């Protein structure tokens, strides 16, 4: 609709008081030296360019080329090529500073590192005790973990009770103000700190304000970066589609994604050797606070993954089909670990101290716990330009991320490029946007190193199948509560030959007609059923996890984030 558009211009570049440094229509050469410096800082902090826009159509001209309504703002999606190191991590871990958890920061960090993680985030629950005491007290423990484990990047964050919604990981780049920013954020914006008289609308607005606050702290140079991921988003049906969109739009440099799979993956292990509950603790039902449109299927896990991600043509795809950059992760949500032999120390006073005393060894094996140690089962693999806090945050913000359970595969490199490009390792990586002239042929190149090492359950997982999922990009939705993407489906499946060591696939994506995105999924092939949108959309999707009998090691999947292909 040309320039007479009716959509909201609410990203920060369009704000009336936008500083010159943020206005990308002003070239560097026309900025004052201080603004050039400021722009450099912001670019370095990931607040300009790659990954910082709500939409892949944010760059001028991109949407018009695709024949769609445009949005303003910097270009979205990662564009860097090659040379990434893939750093495994977990952004959702609890300690003795959570009223329902028990371990020291060092217990969790040591285990996470031993089990193969390169980075992790300590995310104790927002609460009165945490906001007043825990958020300060946990910091020395985190500093200690950083010095004791130099090979592990240990972020401080918290698990935010999003007003009117579920929980979210919020974390910041380390620095002298990390505690101050987190503390002010929690005391002002945590759901536990809101007046009980607040209406649903007031709470939703407060959630948006909290995300904006974090971005403002970065732009004010208090911290070098802040990120938000919605945790276990479909668990109770309280993260409505419009809230997810509003969070992303509140500040796309902060709110960048959600858990594709929840933690608590041991909770479905069959009794008496396990808890015999629901995988992920996904055993809730619609409540008065739930979004009324969600089906009952959304309250359960599918192959261990959250319904928003597991459903081909579902909520996640509806965001990607808009061109809305929104990434997925997997985490442990580790509180109390399956088969661990320790317990809370006696004599703890959590409310007074903001923490439990250090755990004590009991010799009693806990078979009813639902969690794994960080790194033991799931991992979020981030393509980083270096081993650093900033590079991990940049990679997450850019969506250069793939996730797996139980070490299903060893490594993955997926790119989309102009077909026939003779250069090795060329192409646009995960999270990126490839722009080509209409009619140009593109192809997916996919290299997977199959697993040759035993996982932490002592077996070598075998990848059986890889699915290529493609969706047409149709631009912004009129109804922010949309959660279906009718043009997204599995377009191709590759069976992996038994005994293979490597999968190398070139898959032609045809001549570019309409803008589209692509994402990948793989499985051990043990459990599948037709997808919720029908067998024509997803013939062999993840299967509903049984209550009380969901062996997490017998049902392994990997998922990648998307790559977009747009006309220029």
């Amino acid at each position, binding site marked *: 609709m040309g320039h007479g558009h009716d959509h909201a211009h609410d990203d920060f570049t369009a704000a009336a008081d936008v500083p010159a440094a943020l206005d990308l229509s002003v070239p560097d050469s026309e900025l004052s030296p201080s603004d050039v410096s400021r722009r450099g800082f912001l670019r370095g902090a990931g607040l300009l360019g790659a990954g910082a826009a709500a939409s892949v159509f944010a760059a001028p001209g991109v949407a018009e080329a695709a024949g769609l309504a445009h949005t303003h703002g910097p270009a979205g999606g990662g564009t860097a090529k090659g040379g990434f190191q893939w750093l495994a991590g977990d952004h959702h871990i609890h300690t003795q500073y959570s009223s329902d958890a028990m371990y020291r920061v060092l217990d969790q960090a040591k285990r996470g590192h031993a089990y193969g993680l390169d980075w992790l985030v300590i995310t104790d629950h927002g609460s009165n005790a945490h906001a007043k005491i825990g958020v300060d007290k946990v910091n020395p423990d985190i500093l200690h973990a950083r010095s004791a484990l130099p090979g592990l990047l240990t972020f401080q964050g918290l698990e935010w009770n999003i007003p009117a919604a579920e*929980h979210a990981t919020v974390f910041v780049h380390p620095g002298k103000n990390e505690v101050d920013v987190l503390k002010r954020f929690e005391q002002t914006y945590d759901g*536990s700190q809101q007046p009980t008289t607040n209406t*649903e609308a007031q709470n939703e607005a407060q959630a948006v304000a909290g995300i904006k606050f974090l971005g403002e702290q970065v732009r004010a140079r208090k911290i070098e970066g802040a990120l938000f991921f919605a945790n276990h988003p479909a668990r*109770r049906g309280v993260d409505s589609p419009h809230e997810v969109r509003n969070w992303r739009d509140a500040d796309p440099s902060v709110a960048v994604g959600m858990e594709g799979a929840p933690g608590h993956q041991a909770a479905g292990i*069959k009794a008496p050797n396990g808890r015999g509950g629901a995988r992920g*603790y996904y055993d809730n039902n619609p409540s008065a606070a739930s979004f009324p449109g969600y089906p009952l299927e959304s309250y359960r896990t599918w192959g261990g993954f959250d319904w928003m991600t597991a459903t081909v043509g579902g909520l996640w795809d509806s965001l990607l089909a808009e061109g809305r950059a929104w990434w997925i992760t997997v985490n442990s949500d580790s509180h109390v670990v399956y088969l661990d032999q320790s317990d809370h120390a006696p004599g703890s006073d959590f409310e007074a101290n903001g923490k439990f005393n250090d755990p004590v060894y009991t010799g009693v094996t806990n078979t009813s716990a639902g969690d794994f140690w960080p790194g033991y089962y799931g991992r979020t693999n981030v393509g980083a330009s270096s081993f650093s806090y900033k590079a991990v945050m940049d990679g997450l913000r850019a969506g250069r991320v793939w996730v797996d359970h139980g070490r299903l595969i060893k490594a993955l490199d997926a790119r989309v490029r102009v077909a026939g490009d003779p250069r090795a390792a060329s192409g646009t990586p995960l999270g990126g946007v490839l722009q080509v002239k209409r009619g140009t042929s593109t192809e997916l190149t996919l290299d997977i190193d199959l697993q040759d090492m035993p996982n932490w359950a002592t077996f070598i997982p075998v990848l059986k199948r890889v699915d290529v999922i493609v969706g047409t990009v149709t631009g912004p939705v009129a109804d922010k509560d949309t959660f279906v993407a009718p043009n997204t489906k599995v377009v191709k499946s590759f069976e992996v030959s038994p005994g293979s060591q490597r999968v190398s696939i070139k898959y032609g994506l045809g001549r570019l007609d309409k803008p589209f995105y692509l994402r990948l999924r793989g499985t051990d092939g043990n459990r599948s059923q037709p997808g919720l949108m029908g067998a024509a959309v997803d013939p062999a999707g993840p299967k*509903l996890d049984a*209550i009380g009998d969901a062996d997490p090691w017998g049902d392994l999947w990997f998922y990648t984030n998307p790559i977009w292909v747009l006309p220029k």
Partner: protein
Amino acid sequence: MTIYHSTAALSADLVTPAGTYGVPAGAPVIGVSRGHRELAEADHWILSLVPAPVLACTHLVREPFPHVAISLVGAAASAAAAASAAAEVPTAVRAATTAPGVGLLGGLVAPAGAQAVPETRSILETLPALETPPALETQPTLQVAADLAVAGRSGRAVLFPGVANLVGTLSVADVLALSAIDRIEILGGEVPDPAALVETNDFVRPQYRAGQLILTVMPAVDGRLVPFESRTPTPCCAAH
């Protein structure tokens, strides 16, 4: 025998359309809102009614704030008066409404041995309409919710004909034969085998959809099925 009052004052839309609630057309529906935030609170209130209603459903409403409203069919005036007192002895009430062999209607109209669904329905057909008893009244600010409950076509049934029979482990066929549940669906689309076993956990909350009372179940241990809704869902966390 409970005495029911004539209800000439009830408007036409306050009675059940044919089939909507699995009870005959003409049975009056009473809408109630007590502002319960949680389903468990509404369930508890419903189960404290003496004698028990024939049909009691919860309805998730968003007006004037998100909470659980309630619709009742066959709730007796005397029941309402006893409700607040009964709330203190829910165990006894629960026993009265769920004891195997004691039909749901036992406390209401009490024909000895009335349990089977066909009989239940024939009894209902003889029920005269009733007025909203004073103790079932709703605060004016919540009346909108009570009205939504009455208009609701998607109630979650807490009490319904035959619920008392749904205890222990039953086959799919038995669940359908012993209660007003019209259909059982497996989450995710699989078709249930009539011989498949359902572990009821003595907690069965079917939902109305398009006039049919449907119990959604899901796969559980050893090929058995469990109702979708659990009596004890995991709380969101202990911290707030």
